[in-house]
């Protein structure tokens, strides 16, 4: 009989023992000043990663060969499932996604162990120990409540299927990206705890922490973007963000992580906001844990999530209490010793970044309140209720538009000193151009505009132009080669923000949709485009049967495309899924989703016209790209530069 799953289980146990070593010995070495003990951290981290990778590969293998005696495989796979989805099914449900979580944690730990040669040994040891502690929690959780290698005998002849919602390329890579982001914040968290323990929080500390935080943020940005892209294509409602608790769970750490990136910049440059930065680092990771908690325990999930297990919820809650409660107690005890090395004036880059932090944190709080309010109301016996998109849109939009204004202002201000006159000198052309483009752009590309649209676009173009102006100003003064990569990355990300705001503004204002009943041969018009329904056909996929509609799109009698919206029934469990037919273009999407069959061969169809939909995701991609560029800034890598007290940006 195949013993590999037992080997996988055993590998998890070894990884747990290594995590215990990694969590205890190095930090004990720091406290008792024993270099040899501190040095245990690196091999423990390497070993832990190796054994978790082994466990992960074994689980993947069990999926590939469809070993249904492993109960997790039997529940989430099927012999007719295509190979790529058998592999992605590894993280398609609870147990496997936890394994992916710890594997990534071990990966980040390994990266810290490898790339931290320039750090003081005690700092590395403490950081790795803290990450080991987080790992212990997750490994225990997995081994005690959710072992992916549990067997079931007799093994069923055929597995159930992977949730069809997850049988899509977007969802194959969405969770790993999201988890990379969540887990990545554990590095910033570990650095924050190390700073609290050692009492050292200086420019060098901020420089070590920044690239790790930016990498985590970059992954989270991409993960959220992919989730939105997936929902748009798979849910058939033409929407791209639903303010659903699970989405919010990823958005909160993103907002706080964004605040952390900016606050770290201030701590590095000016030696201020120290305890605030530490608090943000703890909060970003706590929100990542909370996200895991909310999604995995089922406290917030709708009543339809029947398969949740209260034992898991209790464990995660206890773990959350230990990690977050413990680190905040440490914070309350040690943070008062961090002394600011200066003050932030209002008309200075740090002044604007402080405001940016306030807005971001308030926005995160608003999302937090909206997400947890139903739970709070339930806990206080006020009844069951849900908070929907209207709340979030009303609260969120007024909070984020000033943020864009701050981005524009901050780009024009220097650190430490700045004044309204230089700000105006640098921004006047930006302002003129932004106003002009904001007025002209929607008329040319959409054919209409309004005051609100023009105002929002003004901010968006302002962010783009001011980011360009900053690069131009510095490049023409000292040469573009001298501009650090971190600044290029920042400008890129701010351009991305502008592009995102353009997309959100136009898609939310000028979208058009209609629900129509069409018999084969009928056509209908939407926003000047003609949609002709040419009937349906039935097709068989590898593990589903599909009803495929044929819709011919034309504009002024010229055929643009033939869209094929689908309704799929997955055979194993009989679940049905929609696949929208989309004609994507940079400036507009045309979108068709198949509704229900009506009498006489007619179908109900949902048609959408979505102008500038792609800008929303393009903006997010630019932001992530900006993060990627910034990570490679050389001052994060060279030991001398790390320890230098004065920087160039």
């Amino acid at each position, binding site marked *: 009989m195949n013993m590999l799953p037992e080997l996988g289980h055993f590998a998890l146990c070894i990884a747990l023992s290594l995590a215990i070593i990694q969590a205890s010995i190095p930090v004990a070495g720091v406290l008792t000043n024993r270099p040899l003990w501190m040095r245990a951290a690196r091999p423990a981290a390497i070993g832990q990663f190796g054994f978790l990778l082994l466990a992960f590969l074994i689980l993947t293998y069990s999926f590939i060969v469809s070993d249904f005696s492993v109960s997790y495989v039997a529940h989430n796979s099927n012999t007719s499932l295509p190979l790529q989805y058998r592999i992605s099914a590894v993280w398609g449900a609870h147990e496997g996604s936890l394994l992916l979580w710890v594997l990534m944690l071990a990966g980040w730990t390994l990266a810290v162990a490898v790339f931290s040669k320039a750090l003081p040994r005690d700092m590395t040891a403490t950081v790795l120990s803290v990450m080991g502690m987080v790992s212990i929690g997750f490994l225990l959780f997995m081994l005690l409540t959710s072992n992916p290698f549990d067997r079931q005998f007799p093994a069923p002849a055929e597995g159930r299927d992977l949730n069809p919602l997850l049988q899509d390329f977007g969802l194959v890579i969405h969770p790993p990206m999201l988890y990379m982001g969540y887990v990545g914040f554990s590095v910033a968290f570990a650095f924050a705890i190390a700073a609290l323990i050692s009492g050292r929080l200086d420019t060098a500390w901020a420089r070590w922490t920044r690239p790790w935080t930016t990498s985590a943020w970059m992954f989270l940005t991409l993960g959220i973007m992919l989730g939105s892209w997936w929902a748009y294509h798979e849910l058939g409602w033409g929407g791209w963000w639903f303010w659903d608790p699970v989405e919010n769970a990823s958005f909160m750490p993103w907002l706080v992580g964004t605040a952390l990136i900016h606050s770290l910049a201030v701590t590095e440059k000016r030696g201020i906001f120290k*305890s605030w930065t530490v*608090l943000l680092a*703890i*909060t970003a990771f*706590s929100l990542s844990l909370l996200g895991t*908690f909310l999604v995995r*325990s*089922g*406290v*917030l999930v*709708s*009543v*339809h999530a*029947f398969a949740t297990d*209260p034992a898991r*919820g*209790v464990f995660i*809650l206890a773990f*959350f*209490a230990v990690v*977050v*409660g413990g680190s*905040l*107690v440490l*914070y*309350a*005890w040690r*943070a*008062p010793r961090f002394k600011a090395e200066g003050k932030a004036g209002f008309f200075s880059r740090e002044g604007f970044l402080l405001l940016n932090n306030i807005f971001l944190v308030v926005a995160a709080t608003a999302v937090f309140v909206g997400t*947890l309010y139903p*739970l*709070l109301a*339930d*806990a206080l016996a006020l009844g*069951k209720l849900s908070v929907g998109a209207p709340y979030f849109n009303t609260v969120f939009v007024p909070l984020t538009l000033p943020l864009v204004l701050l981005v524009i202002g901050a780009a024009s201000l220097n650190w430490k000193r700045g004044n309204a006159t230089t700000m105006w000198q640098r921004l006047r052309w930006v302002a003129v151009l932004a106003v002009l483009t904001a007025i002209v752009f929607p008329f040319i590309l959409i054919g209409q505009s309004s005051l609100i649209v023009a105002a929002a676009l003004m901010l968006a173009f302002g962010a783009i132009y001011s980011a360009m102006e900053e690069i131009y100003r510095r490049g023409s003064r000292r040469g573009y080669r001298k501009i650090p990569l971190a600044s290029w990355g920042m400008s890129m990300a701010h351009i991305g923000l502008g592009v995102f705001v353009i997309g959100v503004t136009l898609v939310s204002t000028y979208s058009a949709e209609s629900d129509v009943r069409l018999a084969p041969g009928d056509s209908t018009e939407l926003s000047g485009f003609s949609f002709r329904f040419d009937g349906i056909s039935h097709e068989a996929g590898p593990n589903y049967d599909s009803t495929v509609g044929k819709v011919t799109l034309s504009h002024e009698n010229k055929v643009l495309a033939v869209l094929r919206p689908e309704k799929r029934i997955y055979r194993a*469990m*009989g*679940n*049905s899924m929609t696949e929208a037919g989309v004609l994507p273009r940079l400036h507009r999407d045309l979108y068709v989703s198949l509704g229900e069959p009506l009498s006489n061969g007619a179908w109900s169809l949902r048609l959408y016209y979505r102008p500038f939909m792609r800008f929303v995701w393009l903006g997010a991609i630019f932001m992530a790209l900006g993060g990627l560029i910034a990570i490679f800034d050389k001052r994060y890598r060279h030991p001398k530069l790390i320890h230098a007290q004065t920087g160039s940006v």
Partner: protein
Amino acid sequence: MQARFLIPVIVVIGLLGILAIGLTLDPRKVPSPLIGKPAPVFALPKLYQPDQLLTNNDLKGQLALVNVWASWCVACREEHAQIERLSTEFKLRVIGLNYKDKPEDARRWLAQFGNPYSDIAVDEPGRVGIDWGVYGVPETFVIDANGVIRYKHIGPVTASDIETVILPLIAEIQRTDTK
């Protein structure tokens, strides 16, 4: 130690409290405001005789279970065997309320899995479901011989639900009613 640095801990302790209470609340144990009240009035076509109506008066006279189900509901498939047991093994009267479903889909579903129901009412627009406070399918109501709702079960009925909750409750109802 300065007091303001304690604020985050205090906030988190509050949050943990809420989450802990949240965990103890089982989303399935939502008390229905209808318990102890007569079943809401309805008159719906029967699935197999669409020209005949099934009304709340038909519930009276004998204890009945009303099982809200739909062919599109995966959890209903999961509980189907248990519903079957309720009607065949325990000889209970189980009435189906086919919720937001197409009659032809519902009939196909029953043909495939078997029909455990003594009667089925079709609530295609889901209006009666609203009166009954249905917010997730499947749900199962226990209605006594006087037509009063005595219990509501949210989610699929499992074998242990039958043994530990539903059968004892029915025994209790029948004991007090015959007195």
